[in-house]
């Protein structure tokens, strides 16, 4: 007789499947210290043999009170903190916050600054997606090697960030109405060189892993996310597009100069882990196209609108500004009471909300697949927990 697992405190009962093999339900707590949880993330998993029957994410191990701190300091002071939300993509975080404040305060951004912002955001997308591919492969068991390739390429982009902003990771580069420091011609030449060579790296990465038999076996038909569920669960970013929903905020909102740039939105068909991986590869190729156009057309002119940062105040009101970050829709909901600090500062973090349907994707798969599915969601705990 197979004993069902009853958890009175949590209020659920699970009965093992009736088959020839007698199995026992096992509750495993994975994390927060685990090599494949991408940081301090915990999953309470109930296993039937090796099969996942129930999976509850436990968050908050990196809850750094970003929102409350931002409500205690002035508008400008939050920009360095946005860097530390999704610490892979500090540039896009800066942009999302600045965009929300600019919408609220009605600041017009000069042309050159818009170009620089697009260049920085797309470079961020390139390095985020390549590292994501590396981490995903780490989760499938290719420990290290693809990650080394990705980080080699990432260092080149970080050098560009460092030359422009002074910091490798925490760039703190964008300001309300522009960017903090203009880039010079040498920097643009260096950026062109990196962008020119990037397709070679994508080819190299693809030659290494895309057609790899093991990768195909580990990722295809794993963690399928149906289209309707993806929309209903507010999934955004490459994950949503891998499920076949054509929704890219760069195309929908046309913020910045994205309305003028020519690029396509890659879509997946099945919505499995493989699609999510491959949509990111294709997005990198589109990013290279965007970068080439932006680096070609960048105009001369001022790189910021000359907004006085000291004692910066925002008119009374509230507003929601959002951009398409590398991980999905990154939005800031801000409420101003007319003083030097926001009354309410809320981050709509993409990887936090993308975790909502983790259980739906994992149930029925093997435990080892759950790690791969988690890897394909592409979470960063700084943003999940804030």
């Amino acid at each position, binding site marked *: 007789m197979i004993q069902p697992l009853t958890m009175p405190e949590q209020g659920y009962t699970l009965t093992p499947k009736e088959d020839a093999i007698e199995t026992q339900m096992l509750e495993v707590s994975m994390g*927060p*210290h*685990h*090599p494949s949880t991408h*940081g*301090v993330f915990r999953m309470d998993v109930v296993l039937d043999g090796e099969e996942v029957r129930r999976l509850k994410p436990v968050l*908050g*191990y*990196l*809850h*750094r*009170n*970003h929102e*409350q*701190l931002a409500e*205690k300091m002035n508008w400008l002071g939050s920009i*360095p*903190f946005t860097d*530390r939300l999704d*610490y*892979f993509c500090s540039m896009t975080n800066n942009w999302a916050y600045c965009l929300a404040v600019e919408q609220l305060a009605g600041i017009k951004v000069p042309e050159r600054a818009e170009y620089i912002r697009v260049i920085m955001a797309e470079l961020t997308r390139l390095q985020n997606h390549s590292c994501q591919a590396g981490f995903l492969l780490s989760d499938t068991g290719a420990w290290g090697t693809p*990650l*080394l390739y990705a*980080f*080699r390429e*990432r*260092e080149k982009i970080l050098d560009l960030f460092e030359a422009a902003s002074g910091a*490798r*990771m*925490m760039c703190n580069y964008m300001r309300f109405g522009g960017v903090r420091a203009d880039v010079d011609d040498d920097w643009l030449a260096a950026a062109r060189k990196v962008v020119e060579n990037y397709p070679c790296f994508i080819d190299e990465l693809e030659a290494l892993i895309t057609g790899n038999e093991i990768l195909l076996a580990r990722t295809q038909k794993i963690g399928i996310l149906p289209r309707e569920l993806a929309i209903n669960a507010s999934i955004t970013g490459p994950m949503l597009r891998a499920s076949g929903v054509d929704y890219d905020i760069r195309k929908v909102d046309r913020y910045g100069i994205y309305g003028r740039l020519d690029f396509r939105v890659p879509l997946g068909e099945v919505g499995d882990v493989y699609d999510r991986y491959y949509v990111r590869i294709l997005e990198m190729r589109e990013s290279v196209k965007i970068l080439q156009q932006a680096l070609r057309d960048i105009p001369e002119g001022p790189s910021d609108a000359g907004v006085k940062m000291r004692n910066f105040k925002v008119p009374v009101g509230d507003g929601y500004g959002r951009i398409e970050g590398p991980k999905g829709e990154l939005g800031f909901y801000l409420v101003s009471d007319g003083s030097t600090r926001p009354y309410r500062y809320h981050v709509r973090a993409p990887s936090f909300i993308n975790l909502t349907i983790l259980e739906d994707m994992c149930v029925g798969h093997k435990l080892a697949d759950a790690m791969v599915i988690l890897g394909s969601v592409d979470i960063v*705990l*700084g943003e999940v*927990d804030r």
Partner: protein
Amino acid sequence: MAIDEGLKSELRKAGVFVTTVEDLYNWGRKNSIWPLQFGLACCAIEMIAAACSRYDMARFGAEVFRPSPRQADLMIVAGTVTKKMAPLAVRLYNQMPEPKYVIAMGACAISGGPFKEGYNVLKGIDRYIPVDVHIPGCPPRPEALLDALITLQKRIEQDHLTGKHRLRAYDKEQKAEWPVPEYGEHDLEPPSNPDVWKPEPMKRPEAK
């Protein structure tokens, strides 16, 4: 017991290599530090970068990142320790075998850093466990982590197996476990470990 340096070099000329057990032991340990793969926040990415191609921590013998605390002898606290994470960090430290070392990487691990005012942020991991090397920076560059590693290696070189200042592992009177804090209703209980951490008394400006 130290050997006379002059005698040592004379013997070396004759093809005899003389050392002490202590020196040999320390030499072996310092060149094969196995860090715990313990990434908490932003600094963890710089820790990975330090292990990757450009900075290549393997040059200093510390590239074998171990997922299990039982196989590691260095804990790099890379990132913000929240109050929710602090008991687990202490527990991981307790699980590591002696002799063990801790590097507090970045402003958050040292003092809470920019997030110090947060209600869920621990104001420095040294409230619960002893820290050997602090690296400032937010986040510190990979070079800074390498520098901290070299600093730690120099420290390991000077460890003693016997005598008054011997390693904790060889001192039976030293306790082996650090108390793990518990989740309270408003805060961690206790908020710090008085054996490890004593705050400096507040200096009030004197009235003139």
